[in-house]
């Protein structure tokens, strides 16, 4: 069978924009903000050398999204499915209903194993009746043996997972088009202004009702200086914003225009650290990250986006296990947590010592209100300072920790021994039902059109 994934790279890959980040962006920060260049801290993410933060701190970058944040997302991959049977193949494999998608629509879904556990989460875009693009996480474009976190593993690219279900004689062409495209995300309340000034307001109009702005989870295609772009009204922050797919040929020059404009508007280029904070502080539940909240050992029933990603009325790979869980009644629940310090991997305990669940993500954030930070009851000075920080995160619970009325639930976070007994002193915090930041992403663009 034909292999669609790339071989495991010998060394972590560099994005097309890496050199521009290193040379041009650090100079820009110096010129416009007076920030002395420091070496960019990088980390291997999906076999790419990604910036954790630039010369600005993770906390500064986390805050940028309140105005405008730009992210280099060249590490994520795009796979195009074309042909008469492209729709039915994707609809057979993915839990979301692909058949009822309109042209110009984006849909969030997941790729599951036969056991219903999560391989990847992704966005599907329908470009035409017989033309779909899936946008997948970094490293999910690799098929073959490779070493990650010190162990040798067999990787299978999402495209190869899906291709397994292609029937003989079906007309579907599968192509990884990531090399032709560089994805740049533009998020925050000045995103409309930036796109308008650089590409014109028309690119953000509703393709079916041109008098209106484009809706949430839709995309447009447009030409700019003879190159073809896709812009979607989506993003990993639940704030107003766009994801722009720039042709590789002009990616460096367009990246420079976008970042320079963003810095002029008070924003920053944001690395993986800030991006992690931005997705955890997104809306009232936070956004799960594949590899942290989702993995191949667990199903994702009762995760915040489950209902959006799954249509139980149709068939899909992994459905029988999901159906079985639904029939038996699901108790597990993912919730947002706030704590005085980082608690990743710790057990969550009620104040009377009952184990409630496990923390899957936790990062310090400058975006938690003073009122919420004070609710922790921490002695830590930074937590209670006017412009202080607290850690925010996501945790899986055995069952919903909330009663009839959803209120803050104070908890302790303990380290645990091999038998899952709590040890040491607890970190204080609470389970937070109303989130850190309101989700502005689905709200009308007209609210930010005149900023």
């Amino acid at each position, binding site marked *: 069978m034909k292999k669609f994934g790339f071989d495991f790279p010998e060394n972590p890959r560099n994005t097309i924009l890496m050199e521009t980040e290193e040379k041009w962006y650090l100079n820009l920060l110096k010129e416009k903000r007076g920030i002395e260049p420091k070496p960019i*801290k990088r980390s291997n993410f999906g076999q790419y050398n990604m910036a*954790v*933060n630039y010369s600005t*701190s*993770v*906390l500064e970058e986390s805050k940028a999204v309140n105005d405008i944040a730009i992210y280099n997302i060249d590490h994520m991959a795009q796979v195009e499915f074309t042909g008469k049977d492209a729709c039915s193949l994707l609809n057979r494999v993915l839990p979301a209903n692909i058949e009822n998608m309109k042209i110009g629509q984006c849909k969030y879904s997941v790729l599951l194993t036969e056991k219903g556990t999560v391989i990847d989460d992704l966005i599907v875009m329908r470009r035409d009746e017989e033309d779909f693009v899936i946008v997948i996480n970094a490293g999910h474009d690799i098929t073959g043996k490779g070493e990650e976190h010190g162990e040798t593993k067999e990787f299978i690219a999402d495209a190869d997972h899906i291709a397994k279900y292609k029937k003989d004689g079906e007309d579907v062409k599968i192509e990884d088009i990531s090399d032709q495209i560089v994805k740049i995300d533009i998020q925050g309340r000045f995103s409309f202004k930036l796109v308008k000034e650089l590409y014109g307001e028309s690119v953000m109009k509703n393709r079916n009702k041109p008098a209106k702005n484009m809706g949430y989870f839709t995309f447009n295609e447009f030409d700019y200086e003879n190159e073809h772009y896709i812009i979607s009204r989506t993003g990993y922050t639940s704030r107003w914003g766009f994801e722009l797919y720039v042709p590789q040929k002009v990616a460096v020059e367009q990246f420079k225009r976008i970042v320079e404009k963003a810095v002029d508007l008070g924003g920053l280029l944001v690395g993986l*650290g800030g991006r*992690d904070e931005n997705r955890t502080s997104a809306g009232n539940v936070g956004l799960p990250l594949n590899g942290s909240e989702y993995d191949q050992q667990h199903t994702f029933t009762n995760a915040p986006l489950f209902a959006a990603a799954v249509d139980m009325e149709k068939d899909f790979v992994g459905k029988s296990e999901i159906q079985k869980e639904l029939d038996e009644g699901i108790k597990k629940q993912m919730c947002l947590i706030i704590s005085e*310090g*980082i608690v*990743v991997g710790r057990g969550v305990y009620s104040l009377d010592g009952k184990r409630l669940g496990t923390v899957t993500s936790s*990062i*310090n954030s400058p975006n938690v209100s003073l009122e919420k930070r004070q609710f922790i009851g921490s002695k*830590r*000075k*930074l937590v209670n300072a006017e412009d202080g*920080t607290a850690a925010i995160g996501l945790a899986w619970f055995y069952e919903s920790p909330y009663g009839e009325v959803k209120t803050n639930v104070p908890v302790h976070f303990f380290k645990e021994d091999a038998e899952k007994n709590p040890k040491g002193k607890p970190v204080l915090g609470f389970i937070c039902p109303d989130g850190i930041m309101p989700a502005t992403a689905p709200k009308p663009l007209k609210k930010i059109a005149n900023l």
Partner: protein
Amino acid sequence: MVRDDLKYTQTHEWVKIDGDTAIIGITDYAQQEMGDIVYVELPEVDDEAVKGESFGSVEAVKAVEDINSPISGTISEINEALEDEPELVNKSAYDEGWLIKIKDFNDEEVNNLLDSEAYKKLIAES
């Protein structure tokens, strides 16, 4: 930056011997790797420090790391300035950003720690 007059561990702590007191902190390399430090959790004075076991933790924006004691002994002083200014560890890992002082330690444990050359080699390889 690695100082010649200090001893080091594989886990990036440093030890400075000052008479009958051992001063302990994390290395400049460690603070750089962690990024902006937002909180330092320290033990109480008179607690026992046990070689290789955690006596506290240093928390950055993205991660929290346990700090292991390079040697065994009794904790005689903690750096209380870090409560208000945890960033001293970033600014001055070897001076103002020290973490704890230990008394009643065993000289041989100190002698067995890495010297600056060995530590330089360790970070060059990591």
